[in-house]
């Protein structure tokens, strides 16, 4: 009786938005705490491809070593059972991706509210959860946008070709005394055969 009273007061203290959410998605079914345990890498369950619409092929700027569909601890956190749909994750249905019921902005709002009232463990697995963010930070370290770590920089053409051009110039200068000697020997160009071609 006492416990139920405590629960009632806790629910009363929660903001209406969270109460409505928990009424719609009861924590005993949807929460991150009761979800299927995250598959470990060395267990028999190792998905070859963790499907996600957030990693499209058109993204050519990814970090060079990163696999787009590989197993990572953070991705494993977002794997939920097929039967109970996670309202925070996109869902593949009839071969097409359906948007999550709650977009990332709404997820972030809910998560912030839940953290404030210390009930964030009752929300479904989300990209905005503290656990996900910490796991991802542990995985990626300093690979944050803007730091340049794990990014490829194309650079200007003169920067990309600088090395080969300097090498060519160095070789040419090494052979220059011999070339000048030959040129003088052949009458300062009178008997010269190998005229350069104009490239532009």
């Amino acid at each position, binding site marked *: 009786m006492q416990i139920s009273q405590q629960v009632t007061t806790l629910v009363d203290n929660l903001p209406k938005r969270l109460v409505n959410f928990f009424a719609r998605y009861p924590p005993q079914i949807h929460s991150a705490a009761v979800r299927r345990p995250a598959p470990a890498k060395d267990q028999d369950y190792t998905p070859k491809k963790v499907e996600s619409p957030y990693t499209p092929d058109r993204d050519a700027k990814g970090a060079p070593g990163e696999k787009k569909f590989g197993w990572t601890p953070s991705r494993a956190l977002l794997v939920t059972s097929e039967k109970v749909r996670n309202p925070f994750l996109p869902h593949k249905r009839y071969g097409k991706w359906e948007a999550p019921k709650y977009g990332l902005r709404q997820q972030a709002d809910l998560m912030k509210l839940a953290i404030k009232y210390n009930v964030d463990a009752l929300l479904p697995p989300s990209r905005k959860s503290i656990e996900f963010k910490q796991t991802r930070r542990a995985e990626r370290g300093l690979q944050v946008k803007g730091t340049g770590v794990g990014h490829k920089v194309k650079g200007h053409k003169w920067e990309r070709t600088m090395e080969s051009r300097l090498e*060519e*110039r160095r*070789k*040419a*200068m090494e052979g*220059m005394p011999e*070339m*000048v000697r030959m*040129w003088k020997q052949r009458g*300062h*160009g*009178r008997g*010269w055969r190998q*005229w*350069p*071609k*104009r*490239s*532009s």
Partner: protein
Amino acid sequence: MAKKAKSRTIAVRLISMAMTGYYRTLIRPRAHRPLSMMKYDPVVKKQVLFLEATKGGKNK
């Protein structure tokens, strides 16, 4: 109509053999043999051999 007569002189490009991309443009008589001379290349900061480049080298 008769074709316009070719000029007696032509402008030629002398390319630095130091492969720096530096060149000089000179004018020589059309009938003269190709030019070649030692000239200063400011990129390598030395006197190097400059040779006349044949025209239309890109397509040939």
